[in-house]
């Protein structure tokens, strides 16, 4: 059995990441000649019908009031109990923070390894995985030597599934035995994110690095972003200097983005920054150094000083649009 951890949207359907994992699980299960099972938290709702179309034979529904509190210890403990009882060949989960945390706890509980951020899983003696190290700066081939193989998948890795021949889904409700005397974290408040454009949703991100020179220097980036309907981003040098808030930082320890256009101003293109913007559809680099890695990897480049180039671009946009 290949057990798939399902995260659910507000309406109970599997998230996009979970759908990807289900597709990967089906491939893996086919190779092994074993069935696909799924585990989710909460009530059945329409989930069995949905999963039937994705080739799932068995759905385990975890139900416990503590599971609503969002603590990885509860989710991990519940998952470990199910895995210990079912002994699947593999457990696959989305590589989201929430599932990774639960899988890490479950792996520790079960005394087995966990491979995170995987892009490929290859059964064998022993099994091998390919995983992303530091957000994709490097790929790692690793042996995953365990009786039960736990892995999380990097979002976007496997091809989304076509619908499979519908199965009958049997549903098992499982009430995990969570020790109430164990100290746990509890969710006490949740505030929805304010609406509006963010770094991840903006079609254009105009980002600045050391080359911008100061906090005030970002005014031209703000202005350009406003004109093209984009958001402002930055490198870690800018955050470390206190020029920009950390929420603007693009990169390994900032935000990973995939806009239509990334405008990198005075940013050299260090690997830790690059992994944050490498999925942009196109890149325009503005840099004084024609050899800067950001320049040599960009779609378009302007060689020059940010504070000469951007004002001229802004003037040209205003001239053409009569604004």
């Amino acid at each position, binding site marked *: 059995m290949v057990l798939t951890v399902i995260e659910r949207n507000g309406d109970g359907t599997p998230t996009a990441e979970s759908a990807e994992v289900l597709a990967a699980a089906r491939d893996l299960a086919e190779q092994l000649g074993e069935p696909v099972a799924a585990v989710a938290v909460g009530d059945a709702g329409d989930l069995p019908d949905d999963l039937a179309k994705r080739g799932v034979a068995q759905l385990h529904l975890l139900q416990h009031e503590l599971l609503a509190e969002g603590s990885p210890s509860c989710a991990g403990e519940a998952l470990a109990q199910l895995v210990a009882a079912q002994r699947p060949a593999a457990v696959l989960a989305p590589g989201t*923070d929430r599932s990774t945390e639960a899988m890490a706890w479950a792996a520790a509980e079960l005394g087995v390894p966990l491979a995170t951020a995987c892009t490929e899983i290859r059964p064998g003696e022993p099994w091998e995985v390919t995983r992303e*190290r530091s957000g994709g700066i*490097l*790929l790692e081939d690793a042996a995953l030597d365990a009786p039960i193989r736990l892995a999380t998948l990097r979002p976007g890795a496997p091809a989304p599934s076509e619908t499979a021949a519908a199965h009958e889904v049997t549903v098992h409700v499982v009430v995990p035995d969570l020790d109430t005397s164990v100290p746990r974290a509890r969710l006490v408040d949740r505030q929805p994110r304010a609406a509006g454009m963010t770094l991840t949703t903006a079609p254009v991100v105009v980002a600045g690095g050391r080359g911008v020179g100061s906090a005030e220097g970002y005014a031209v980036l703000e202005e350009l972003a406003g004109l*093209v309907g984009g958001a402002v981003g930055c490198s870690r040098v800018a955050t470390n200097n206190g020029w920009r808030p950390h929420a603007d930082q693009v990169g390994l320890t900032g935000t990973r983005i995939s806009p239509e256009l990334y405008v990198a101003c005075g940013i050299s293109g260090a690997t830790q920054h690059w992994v944050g913007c490498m999925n942009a559809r196109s890149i*325009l680099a503005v840099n004084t150094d024609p050899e800067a890695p950001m320049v040599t990897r960009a779609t378009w480049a302007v060689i020059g000083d940010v504070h000469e180039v951007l004002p*001229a671009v802004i003037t*040209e946009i205003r001239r053409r649009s009569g604004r």
Partner: protein
Amino acid sequence: MDVLVCVKRVPAVGSEILLTPDATAIDTRHLGFTIGPHEECAVEEAVRIAERTGGSAGVLTVGPPEADEQLRYAMSMGADHAVRVDAPVADPDPETTAAAITAALRELSYDLVLFGEASADAGHAQVGFRVACALRRPVVGGVKGIGLDGDRVSLRCEAPDGVEVHEAPLPAVAAVLEGLNLPRYPTIKGRLRAKKATVRVIDPGLATGGLRTLRLRHRPEARAETVVLGRGAAAAPAVVDVLADLGMVR
């Protein structure tokens, strides 16, 4: 309050990464070493909490003797004491690392243990949760704010759909993110003090886990043929043509 921070010595790679001939590791002959940004923020937070509460901030690493350099860096930022769990390899697997930290924590006293969300090189994103599980401590990940209230800690995190606040009784474990604070630069006084400080070394005798690196690879990269639109202000019309083609300006 006594806070402990787990930090890892990692190579400070630039824009090109060289691998060792057998491709099992990064070629570090010409590289410096550092701790990850998440961990730097964890150290800063621990020092601030210790200052505020009159407690202590300790740093802990699992690694070879060279990793003392990173412990001293943390002490130059203001950490009071340092422990190194001796490991023969620079990049142990997550089960080994977690077992080593768990063994060390059983000998140390703490109210709060801070981890980075993910190590900067391997990025397994699991060591903190494994340790919390082994010690049966409450744990919260993705932490961007820490508040203390008597024997409880409140941890603010950014979830995909908003901000969440979790509360846990102490002692507790948290995995933190960069942005939690703005870490300070070490002072000269701090550096001198750190140079003279002692590092306590623990040797628990480590077994290895089931995840074993076979080889590292560069991701296949589509080489861009960069189109240079021009130099300086004179490139502006060409830039706006590109923006217009993309439908971003009229």
